[in-house]
């Protein structure tokens, strides 16, 4: 009994320290403008929802709701792309034998190593020639073509953790690589798939630079770009609305994570690896 209590107590203490900055952010979002700059304590002395209202309608012609909707489209699109493309690619590297496998694997790893800032200018030129600038296409289509090598590598590692005897067994049953992939491998690496989904969603949700470069019209802006608009030399006292919108922006990702992280646990239980 006490062990359990200690476990809980210890976690809560650590959590308090770790979550203090978040508490500060929440508190600030409810503070009136004058309190934000001067105050030391995270809790407002006067609670107000003014920041939420102001932040929502801050930009001409669009509400923050538009930014949310755009971010959801882009993020979900990216998740779909990565799940499909990265699992297919990873399976090839992890399980299939073919000529030049080593070379391609190395090439794939190399793509993780080059900083994206340098690639963005030629990539911009390519997308422009397709006519895709100021659309969501540059943010989504590459995901369907397995450009996120991070997740390919993640899935390769998980797939290699699955005992090959299972593949063998399937092969003996007459399954070709496609059915093995679909019926055996995918269910067994569900935790990796969930992880990919969560991280893709999160990182796309928070991706400022790429979205800034490709999106021009305010009506297409996503949440990170929208948040960036609050900070500029021409304005002041916009920290309140910015915090408020940041807190709102946190909600979908938090809920997404909360909903799916459970599947990591359940996914493993269902896969029957334990016994």
């Amino acid at each position, binding site marked *: 009994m006490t062990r359990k209590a200690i476990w*809980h107590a*210890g*976690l809560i203490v650590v*959590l308090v320290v*770790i*979550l203090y*900055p*978040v508490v*500060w*952010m929440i508190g600030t979002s409810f503070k009136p403008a004058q309190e934000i700059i001067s105050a*030391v304590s995270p809790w407002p002395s006067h609670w107000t929802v003014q920041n939420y209202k102001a932040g929502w309608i801050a930009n001409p012609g669009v509400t923050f709701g538009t930014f949310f909707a755009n971010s959801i489209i882009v993020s979900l699109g990216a998740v779909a792309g990565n799940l499909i493309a990265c699992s*297919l690619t990873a399976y*090839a590297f992890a399980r*299939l*034998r*073919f*000529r030049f*496998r080593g070379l*391609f694997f190395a090439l794939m790893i190399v*793509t993780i*190593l*080059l*900083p994206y*800032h*340098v*690639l963005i*200018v030629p990539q911009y030129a*390519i997308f422009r020639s397709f006519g895709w600038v100021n659309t969501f296409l540059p943010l989504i289509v590459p995901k369907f*073509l397995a*450009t996120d090598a991070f997740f390919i*590598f*993640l899935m390769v*590692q*998980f797939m*290699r*953790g*699955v*005992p090959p005897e299972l593949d063998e*067994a*399937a*092969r*003996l*049953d*007459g399954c*070709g*690589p496609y059915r093995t992939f679909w019926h055996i491998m995918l269910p067994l690496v569900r*935790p*990796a798939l969930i992880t990919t989904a969560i*991280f893709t969603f999160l990182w796309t949700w928070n991706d400022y630079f790429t979205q800034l470069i490709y999106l021009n019209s305010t009506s297409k802006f996503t949440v990170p770009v929208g*948040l*960036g608009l609050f900070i500029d030399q021409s304005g002041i006292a916009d920290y309140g609305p910015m*915090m408020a919108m940041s807190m709102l922006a*946190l909600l979908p990702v938090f809920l997404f994570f*909360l909903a799916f992280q*459970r599947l*990591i646990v359940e996914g*493993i239980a269902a896969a029957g*690896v*334990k*016994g």
Partner: protein
Amino acid sequence: MSVSFRTRAVARVRPGPVRAGKRGTRSPGTAGYIFLIPWFAGFALFTLGPMVFSLYLSFTNYTLLSAPQWVGLANYRRMFTSDPRYIHSLEVTVQYVVVSVPLKLAVALAVALVLNRRRRGSGLYRSLFYIPSLLGTSVSVALVWRAIFGEGGTLDSTLKVAGVHTSNIWTEDPRWALWTLVLLVVWQFGAPMVIFLAGLKQISQHLYDAAAVDGANWWRRFVSITVPMLSPVIFFNLMLELVGAFQAFTPAYIISGGLGGPADSTLFYTLYMYIMGFQNFEFGYASAMAWVLLAIVGACTALMFRFARSWVFYADDGDRR
């Protein structure tokens, strides 16, 4: 599903040559290529061209606003002989990598181990620990960080309580600014933590039970079961955190306002590259910097892959290189 296949396989063992699939219309080699079609397309369309172009740019002067001019190795020479800021950015980045990566992974693994229990509230705790990572590196995080580590901030107030009086603005102090960034990055340990959790869950409880029966204590179980079984995941996290740390950009960008200050103490490699490319319009130089970074990180990665054989244990017995 896997269970059923296993038993069926056991029941159906038969002698004789086993062909890869009754269909036999495709040789083993082509299936791989078919699965790789999306990757080939993506690589050809969006990656290969830009990569080759950026390599070409590294040998030019390119201001983004007019055509590139060939200058040969001038950029590379300049980096290593006449740009002290470049060398400084390398130093800052190496310091950052060497400290933040082990620290972040250790914290992530520790928390994952603690959370790896089927206790009530585990899910909630997991999500709560993950919240800092959900914030990403947006401007709001920079605000909070400066509020906490800035003048009269939380850190100062806490230290006052402990009797230490200082009016240091930690984020503006060249001696400390970098470490506030390390702290920021370690604070966002959620991603490797989740990956560790996923990996931990995949370790069969049988092994632990067997070890417990044998009388192994907690540490022994950790060293002999957890670490080896988790090694592919540790390797993955280590490699990716390392690459990510070398490429770290946004924390430094938002906390220092894009300047790498104070006094260049947070001038990360990619931040300097960004400044040279997008603020100073020396995109050729920036491209050269990118390729040097790739060489450095590539070398580290290659070394890691080579040494992985000695400590990483794969279920498929490492039939690779």
